[in-house]
């Protein structure tokens, strides 16, 4: 039977995991599924590696979705990206080139416990689901838990807050697993992309301070190119710039950590919309949102193949 999967609806965690297994089974020459660890509640943290198998080492791109549980458009986009990459490989020479020259590591659901909880109990849950006995509140903001200027400005020390930084950096097994993987592969990793919602923005470091990164010219050019590519789809405008000035100051973020860890291009997307639906972006808008974002991510990836 032909595997049918609807990329224009939101899927619960179990369906996304089944889909990952199916992609791995049906595209063995381009896909490799593996786990980088376990979540707080014991769920596997799956990553899909996309790209031609070659003997020489390739540059790599990491993309994660669903750091914050309630941002459902994130995992929807990660699935869309994989689908598009695999479906267009045969007839799209630029995609073929990308998959030949780069490895893409796609983590469709970073915060698996939180995502599951947002489907089962609290639609607007944001954090992880970890718990320390001495506190009555659960969860840590994974995007405040990375080991970079941890728990300074823009993060909270209170366990009940939605921006709680955690008891210590990388306290969350999900954050620790991703950090460990990226540290291990830092030699080849050229871009880090994290998908969030909502605000229609493309952000780069720094988040923790007002300041300009050393390779600002290259990163700004890449961001400009990505936003232009995105706009070319349906005319939707995204603002772009350093996270600290474009959004707000926050410490312990994944893009700051990735950048500090030597990944030259670190981006966070805040997808549609700007507040009309917020986290409740209708399924009818999954297609357009993912189509335009696909163009932006492809622009970033293509830029990695050129010198800057």
């Amino acid at each position, binding site marked *: 039977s032909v595997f049918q999967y609807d990329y224009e609806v*939101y899927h619960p965690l179990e369906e996304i995991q089944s889909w990952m297994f199916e992609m791995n089974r049906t595209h063995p020459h381009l896909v490799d599924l593996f786990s980088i660890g376990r979540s707080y509640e014991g769920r596997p943290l799956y990553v899909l590696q996309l790209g031609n198998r070659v003997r020489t080492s390739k540059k790599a791109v990491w993309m994660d979705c669903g750091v914050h549980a309630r941002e459902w458009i994130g995992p929807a986009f990660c699935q869309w990206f994989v689908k598009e990459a695999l479906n267009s490989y045969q007839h799209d020479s630029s995609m073929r080139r990308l998959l030949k020259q780069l490895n893409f590591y796609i983590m469709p659901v970073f915060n698996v416990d939180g995502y599951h909880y947002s489907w089962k109990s609290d639609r607007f849950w944001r954090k992880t689901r970890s718990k320390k006995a001495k506190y009555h509140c659960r969860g840590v903001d994974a995007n405040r838990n990375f080991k970079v200027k941890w728990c300074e400005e823009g993060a909270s020390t209170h366990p009940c807050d939605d921006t709680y930084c955690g008891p210590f950096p990388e306290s969350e097994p999900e954050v620790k697993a991703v950090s460990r993987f990226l540290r291990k592969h830092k030699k080849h990793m050229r871009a880090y992309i994290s998908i969030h919602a909502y605000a229609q923005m493309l952000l780069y470091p720094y988040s923790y301070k007002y300041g300009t990164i050393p390779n600002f010219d290259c990163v700004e050019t890449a961001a400009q190119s990505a936003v232009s590519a995105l706009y070319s789809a349906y005319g939707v405008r995204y603002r772009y710039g350093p996270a600290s000035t474009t959004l707000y100051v926050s410490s312990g973020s994944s893009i700051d950590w990735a950048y500090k860890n030597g990944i030259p291009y670190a981006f966070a997307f805040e997808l549609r919309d700007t507040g009309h639906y*917020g986290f409740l972006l209708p399924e009818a808008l999954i297609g357009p949102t993912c189509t335009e974002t696909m163009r932006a991510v492809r622009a970033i990836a293509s830029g990695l193949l050129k010198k800057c």
Partner: protein
Amino acid sequence: YLYNNRYVGDQVLRIIPSSPGELHYLKQLFQNMTVDLWQPSSSNLIHEGKAVDVHVGRDRTARLKNLLRRAHIQHELLITDVQREMEKQTGYRSNRKRR
């Protein structure tokens, strides 16, 4: 119904503090009132001139609007009923499951 209908009557408001006084008032308000901040994700990240999107439960909407009115702080209603919007978000799937 999705989530046992717990979001019926919940609303999402947008408030843009336009002065230091309004900013201070909102920060105090959201530190003392149980609300779900959609953006920014913390009351400490509220800034003058930047939108605050707040999801408030049905039992608190009237009180919040009253407090804003008394403080002469304008607000805009982004979502009038979160449950209804939620049912629309997952389209045919939730209806199909109910059928």
